[in-house]
C-alpha cells in the first residue's frame, strides 16, 4: 500500500496539475485538442492514487512488484505517449509549413510578374 502521507502529497500534486492545465486552457495558452492526452493521463493517475486497491490489481496483472513502481511506470508510459504525439504534431506542422512556403513563393512570383506587366 502507498503510505497515507504520500497519498495526500500525490493528491495535492494532482490537484495542482489539473489547476495549472485548466488555467492554461482558460487563458487559451493550450489548445484543447493537444491537451486531451494530458487530461486523460491525469485522470487515470488520479484514480489510481485515490483508489489504491485498483492500482494493486492492475500492477499484479502486469507483474510489477511495488506499488510506487507501478505508479512510476504508468507516469512514464503516459509521458512517452505524450512525447510521441508531440513529435507527430511537429511533423504534421512541418508539412503544413512546407506547403505554405511553396504556395507563398509561387504567389510571390505571380505578384512580381503582374507588377512587371503593369509597368511599375
Amino acid at each position, binding site marked *: 500500500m502507498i503510505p497515507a502521507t504520500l497519498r495526500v502529497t500525490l493528491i495535492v500534486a494532482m490537484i495542482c496539475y489539473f489547476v495549472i492545465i485548466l488555467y492554461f486552457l482558460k487563458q487559451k495558452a493550450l489548445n484543447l485538442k493537444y491537451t486531451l492526452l494530458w487530461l486523460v493521463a491525469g485522470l487515470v493517475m488520479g484514480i489510481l492514487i485515490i483508489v489504491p486497491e485498483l492500482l494493486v490489481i492492475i500492477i499484479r496483472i502486469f507483474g510489477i512488484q511495488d506499488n510506487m513502481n507501478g505508479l512510476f511506470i504508468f507516469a512514464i508510459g503516459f509521458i512517452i505517449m505524450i512525447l510521441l504525439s508531440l513529435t507527430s504534431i511537429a511533423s504534421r506542422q512541418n508539412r503544413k509549413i*512546407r506547403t505554405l*512556403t511553396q504556395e507563398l513563393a509561387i504567389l510571390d512570383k505571380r505578384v512580381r510578374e503582374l507588377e512587371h506587366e503593369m509597368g511599375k
Partner: protein
Amino acid sequence: MKQEQRVLVIIPAYNEAENIVNVVKHMMETAPQYDYLVINDGSTDDTCDLCRRENFHYLDLTINMGIGGAVQAGYVYARKYDYDIAVQVDGDGQHDIAYLDRLLEPIVSGDADVVIGSRFLEKEGFQSTLSRRMGINILSGLIWLVSGRHIMDVTSGYRAVNKMFIKIYSEDYPMDYPEPEAIVAAIMHLGRVREVPVRMRAREGGTSSITFRKSIYYMIKVTLAILICRMGYGIRRGKRVDV
C-alpha cells in the same frame, strides 16, 4: 503533338551565388526553347539578388527547406501551370545542360515516366570520389533488393519526369536527401524508370551539401528512408495515376 510538350527545368539553388548566373545563362543559350525556374531555397548569400538583377524566372522560398522541399516547390509550380515534363538540374553547374534532350527523349516518346541522368553508365566525366561511389553502390544494391530494379546512379539529381510524376511528386516528395527515396517511390507507383548516360562535372564553385562528417548520417538516414518508403506501399504496389 509530341513536339508541343511543355518542359519546365527546375533549378534548385541554396547559396549558389557563385554558380547560379552561369548555370542559368548557359541554360538560356543551350536550350532556350524550354522554360526554366530557379528555386532559391532561403539562401543566405545573394543568390536571390542575382536572380532579381538578371531578371531570371525564380521562386523565392522564405524559409530554407532543404533540397526536397525546394524541388517539390518546382513540381507544385509545374503542376499549377500545367507543364507536361519537369526536369531537375542542380544549381551548382554539375549537370551539363547539353544532355537535356537525351533525358527528355524517352519521356517525349512515351517510353519512360522517370528518366535519371547517370554518370556511371558510360563512366565518362566526373565520377565522384571512391568512398562516395561505394556509398552509391550500397544504396543502389538496397534499391535493387527492395524494388527489383537496377538503378546505378541513385543519387543523381539530374532527372526528368512526365506529367504523371509531376502530380505524384507535387503531392508527396521525400525530404532531406530525397534522390534515392524518390526512385523507390517512382518504382512503387509502377513508374517506368530509365537511366540515360550523362557526363557530370566537378562543382564549379561553392561547397557540396554533403560533407564527410555528414556522410555517415546520410547513409543511415537514406537506408532507413528507403526501407520505410518501401514498407509504405506494402506487398501490393501503388497504382498508376491517370493524368
